[in-house]
């Protein structure tokens, strides 16, 4: 366990400069933006003279040189002060924190579904390679990959909410029914079925293709032939020898794809009016609330780093060949 931890920690240490690059990059991006906070404020107030502008710039610390501003900005962030949200009138950190749990639940469900369904379909396809189940599954994978998630979401709403009236068309829970306990859990689950399907189908397609290719690759290796020659049953060879090795690229991909998935949640959460981080990102672009938007960038970057840290731990547990160097 110690060597696993050491490896993952080393990878975590590597992400410190990455985070720093992101922060400096965002700061420079804002410097490039036409007009600063004070211009935006003055425009909101309906104009103001040069003296007012100068005093405001002093208040906001915009009267000092760019490197000093950068330094102050970094120090502020280290104390987790993300500034004030212009539209919510609250600190950005608390606005984001309120939305985080919805996105976390949504993401983990979508990820779990895409991973397990992709795994099963990939194994089935690889078992009957070039047979009809393989052709069917591979074709479905290609089609799933090409479906825009927001369009799929709308079509699912038409089918399951409007025509069949089976599932709610949006929101996170039924408002004003005061559900508790199991009833509340089921209510949230019913609200999440369609969003999860819309977001995860594209990732399901990626996982199933990866799993299929990875299974085919592993099945040609010598140790599989040895296991078969030992007289082990096909099911045993598959479960104990092929699957564990074929899973490794899948696990790596969870880490790589998590950031893309988080980006995809922006559109899906907007379609289904889920009060999560993605919808907040969309709202803050529409309302030009840059403070909130940058806060979301930071929080999502940290989330991606944390998920990759967990993936590293898992990977090292699955693959005994990995040793911390």
């Amino acid at each position, binding site marked *: 366990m110690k060597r696993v931890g050491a490896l993952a920690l080393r990878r975590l240490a590597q992400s410190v400069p990455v985070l720093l690059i992101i922060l400096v990059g965002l700061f420079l991006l804002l410097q490039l933006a036409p007009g600063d906070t004070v211009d935006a404020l003055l425009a909101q107030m309906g104009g103001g003279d040069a003296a007012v502008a100068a005093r405001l710039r002093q208040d906001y610390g915009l009267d000092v040189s760019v490197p000093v501003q950068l330094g102050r900005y970094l120090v502020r962030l280290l104390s987790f002060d993300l500034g004030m949200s212009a539209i919510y009138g609250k600190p950005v950190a608390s606005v984001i924190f309120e939305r985080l749990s919805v996105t976390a639940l949504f993401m983990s469900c979508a990820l779990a579904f895409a991973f397990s369904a992709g795994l099963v379909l990939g194994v089935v396809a690889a078992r009957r390679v070039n047979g009809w189940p393989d052709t069917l599954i591979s074709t479905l994978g290609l089609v799933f990959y090409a479906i825009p998630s927001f369009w799929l979401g709308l079509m699912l709403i038409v089918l399951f909410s409007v025509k069949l009236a089976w599932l709610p068309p949006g929101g996170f829970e039924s408002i004003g029914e005061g559900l508790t306990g199991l009833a509340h859990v089921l209510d949230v689950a019913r609200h999440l079925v369609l969003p999860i399907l819309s977001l995860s189908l594209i990732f399901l397609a990626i996982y199933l293709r990866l799993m299929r290719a990875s299974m085919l690759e592993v099945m040609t290796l010598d140790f599989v032939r040895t296991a078969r020659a030992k007289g082990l049953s096909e099911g045993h060879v598959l479960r104990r020898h092929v699957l564990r090795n074929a899973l490794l690229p899948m696990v790596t991909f969870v880490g790589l794809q998590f950031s893309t998935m988080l980006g995809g949640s922006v559109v899906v959460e907007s379609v289904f009016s889920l009060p999560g981080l993605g919808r907040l990102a969309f709202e803050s672009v*529409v309302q030009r609330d840059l403070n909130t938007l940058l806060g979301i960038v930071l929080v999502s970057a940290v989330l991606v780093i944390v998920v990759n840290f967990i993936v590293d731990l898992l990977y090292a547990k699955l693959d005994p060949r990995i040793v911390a160097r």
Partner: protein
Amino acid sequence: MSPALRAFLRSPAGILGVALLVLVLVAAASADWFFPRDPLSLAGRPLQWPGQNPRLLLGTDNLGRDIAGFICHGARVSLLIGLVATVVAVGLGTLVGAIAGFYGGWVDDALMRVTEAFQTVPNFILLLVLVAVFGSELEVITIAIGLVGWTAPCRLVRAEFMSLRTREYVLAARGLGVRDAGLIFREILPNALPPVIVYASVVMAVAILMESALAFLGLSDPNIASWGNMIGAGRSVLRTEWYVSAIPGVAILVTVLAFSLVGQGLNDALNPRLQAV
């Protein structure tokens, strides 16, 4: 006929992909011919179902726009944005990947940290930041989509360069006094490009999806006929006239599928190892 081309033509995915691609290209090329009017202008009474009016094949949306004309003009927009964004992404990725892979050492370390920074921030959220800061004109959006997609081609090129830079022909060229730029662009790059070209079809598919998502949210250029835009407009009449959102979605699906299939066909042709299993 070269063996690679013959292998491509033997892959059903490749053939279907090319067929779908031709369909999209014909739609884009004939847009001005069949639908000379401005696709954003009023063509008739709003919300006519497809087939209801023989003059308007696919009906009209809730703003009275001709859906068939909008689809054909939208094909141009999608292809144009996708193509330019792909050129930006693959060009930038190739340049950075080539430099990192060729020099290695601290140059590689520094460039890889920047690449990781771009990979850590979710692409679509970075795209939103760029749109929020620089506005949503067509040019800005196209370049922004390219800018958020360069990391995967970069890693691909870097890996190729790392394996190719110590080959004998490179060492020979170096011995003949060829400068670094010559080694990178004239000796190594032509040999590193094939996998990147295959991957470009994936970049293109992702770029088209990203633009449509942006347009769907109403954050793309409002003055262009973008498929995502019509899907977004159709949301308000989704309960009854769902075809307004459905039809442009099929157009996106067909286009993205075409590029994925072409990519698959190229992959089958250039990497036949998995077929033999």
